[in-house]
């Protein structure tokens, strides 16, 4: 049976696990119909021209884990920012792990989507925001239809999160192939701020396919920093659909560190719904083998006097492939918009490929918009210079790559996270030099 049919026909079984009398369930039943109509995207769709899901979708995915697997913290400690005090929402094969997690309901809520969707005290927030920010396509509809679990973060007005929140998804390989569909909602009301670090990690060589949807609401003067660490095994694929609505004078940033995974697709959407907004989309991609990463960004400027900044750096070795498809829309009313986009790539091998496609749709006449994309190789004369100073070839290349990505790395605000990402990069590049540039 094809995966699509399986997903449609399994919906009945899924319904037996949720409260179908909850009015929210209408959203799911509509969504499964939408998914049935839309299906999975194919390469015929312009936005999916360079990314095929065929090799992933052919697997016979288990939709519900049959057994619960326990994980000891010491075995997965390295996947956390363990030298940093954080709230943690941890899932194992899609199931909440209370003993790895650390949640709160003190001044704000850091908890489970399954609680938020079913308990009365969260109803007011869920009714206003759940599934209101995400734009619907086949993948989002699929996630919505099966929405049940994920992270729920709610900061009421004038609240600053006292420590970052880590959302970590482990897959254990308890099934030959597993489909996971986390659904996250991050609501940051006026004058509030929060930092989130998200990671998906497969602990086996069995197939994992994650179709994640995250909705982020940033109210007036709100500040949201969201970091995504994508450094999964070559048997894990991820489609990350993240939607951010921003209101007046809010600042929202998403950093995506894409270092591994079979196929990774980031659908990153920002909609500016007020004035004086700043949206920041940064990414570093470092790939080798046959891995594939596709960054598909959309920033919609719908009000005047806002800014957006996109800076994506990519380094591709062996047969890896990268895609950057960045769209900026400036509505007619959105005068005095400053929208910047930059995508720079380095190819380390003749067999690596990058497709970079900026799209600007500008309907206002008093704006500053720029985009630039480069695809090149490492500078040989710079490498020779480093070698004459005693820095060997491998370390020299690593240093140049690190320097290439440095301005994005530099914008990471949490020192412990920066150190961790630097270490991941050093590990990937096979060097032991401390990159403290």
């Amino acid at each position, binding site marked *: 049976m094809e995966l699509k049919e399986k997903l449609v026909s399994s919906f009945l079984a899924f319904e037996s696990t949720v409260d179908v009398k909850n009015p929210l369930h209408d959203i799911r039943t509509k969504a499964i119909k939408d998914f049935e109509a839309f299906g999975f995207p194919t390469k015929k769709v312009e936005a999916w021209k360079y990314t095929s899901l065929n090799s992933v979708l052919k697997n016979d995915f288990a939709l519900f884990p049959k057994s619960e697997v326990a994980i000891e913290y010491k075995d997965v400690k390295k996947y956390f920012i363990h030298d940093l005090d954080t709230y943690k929402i941890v899932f194992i094969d899609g199931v909440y792990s209370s003993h790895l997690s650390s949640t709160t309901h003190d001044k704000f809520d850091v908890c489970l989507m399954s609680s938020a969707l079913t308990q009365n005290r969260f109803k007011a927030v869920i009714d206003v925001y759940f599934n209101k920010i995400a734009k619907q396509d086949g993948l989002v509809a699929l996630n919505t239809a099966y929405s049940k679990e994920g992270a729920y973060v709610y900061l009421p007005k004038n609240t600053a999160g006292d420590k970052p929140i880590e959302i970590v998804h482990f897959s254990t390989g308890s099934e030959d192939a597993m489909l996971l569909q986390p659904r996250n909602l991050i609501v940051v009301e006026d004058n509030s701020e929060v930092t989130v670090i998200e990671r998906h990690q497969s602990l086996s060589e069995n197939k994992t396919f994650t179709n994640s949807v995250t909705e982020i609401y940033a109210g007036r003067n709100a500040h949201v920093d969201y970091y995504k660490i994508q450094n999964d095994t070559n048997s894990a694929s991820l489609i990350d659909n993240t939607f951010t609505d921003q209101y007046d004078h809010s600042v929202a940033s998403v950093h995506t560190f894409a270092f591994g995974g079979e196929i990774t697709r980031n659908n990153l959407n920002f909609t500016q719904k007020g004035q004086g907004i700043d949206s920041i989309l940064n990414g570093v991609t470092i790939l080798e083998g046959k891995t594939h990463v596709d960054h598909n960004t959309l920033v919609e400027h719908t009000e005047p006097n806002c800014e957006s900044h996109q800076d994506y750096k990519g380094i591709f070795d062996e047969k890896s492939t990268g895609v950057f498809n960045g769209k900026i829309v400036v509505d007619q009313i959105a005068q005095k918009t400053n929208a910047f986009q930059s995508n720079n790539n380095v190819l380390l091998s003749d067999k690596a490929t990058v497709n970079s496609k900026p799209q600007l749709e500008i309907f206002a006449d008093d704006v500053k918009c720029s985009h630039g994309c480069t695809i090149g190789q490492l*500078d040989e*004369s*710079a490498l*020779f*210079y*480093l*070698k*004459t*100073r*005693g*820095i*060997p*070839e491998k*370390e*020299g290349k690593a*240093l*140049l790559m*690190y*320097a*290439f*990505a*440095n*301005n994005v790395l530099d914008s990471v605000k949490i020192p412990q996270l920066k150190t961790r990402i630097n270490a991941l990069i050093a590990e990937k590049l096979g060097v032991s*030099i401390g990159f*403290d*540039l």
Partner: protein
Amino acid sequence: MLEIKNLHASIDEKEILKGLNLSVKAGEVHAIMGPNGAGKSTLAAVVSGKEDYEVTEGSIELEGEDIGELGADERAHKGVFLSFQYPVEIPGVSVTNFMKTAINETRKARGLEDMPARDMLKKIKEKSELLEIDSKFLSRSLNEGFSGGEKKRNEIFQMAMLEPKVAILDETDSGLDIDALRIVANGVNKLKSNDNAVIVITHYQRLLEYIVPDYVHVLHDGKIVKSGTKELALELEEKGYDWIKAEL
């Protein structure tokens, strides 16, 4: 210290060095002069290990060891240093951290532990003062947006940090005003000892007023065609190179 014998080197099958001989002993300063296209910069690149050049004949020995087959990094570990005519800009890497990496990689190759951070800072401070380099300058990206003078001072600063056995200064005087020239030359002179050697490649006699050579060589068409003492440099300054070509 450095023995170059019958060195032939070519790039893209074009022969640039055509049987060059040079013997440099510890404690000596040698100047290599010559018209454009004589092969001066090629000599610097080949000795320091640039892979674009193919050595077809001859040998390069450092303290009796053939270094001709070694990579540029390995030659650096053995004590070869090249001050670039055009230092490369590397955005995103600060001067300080570049120097730390270079020194610790060299130490690693020599079987030593990383230099303790305090010693490193002390050394950086001492050597930057020698070159009259401001501490703010050290946190800037390597060579990015540096003036010509700053780039050359930074080269000699690196030489001071790495303490090479043989330093080749390729057109270090080009693009320098008189003050920067004095600082650079003063730095080189202070680094000179009986245990190291300096090869100054230059077009003009000017630099040699500050860094006084023991020997002056004229390079022409890939070979050293005339050698002498510092007076030869003055003669070249006065008469140009044509009289040497005529002598051949």
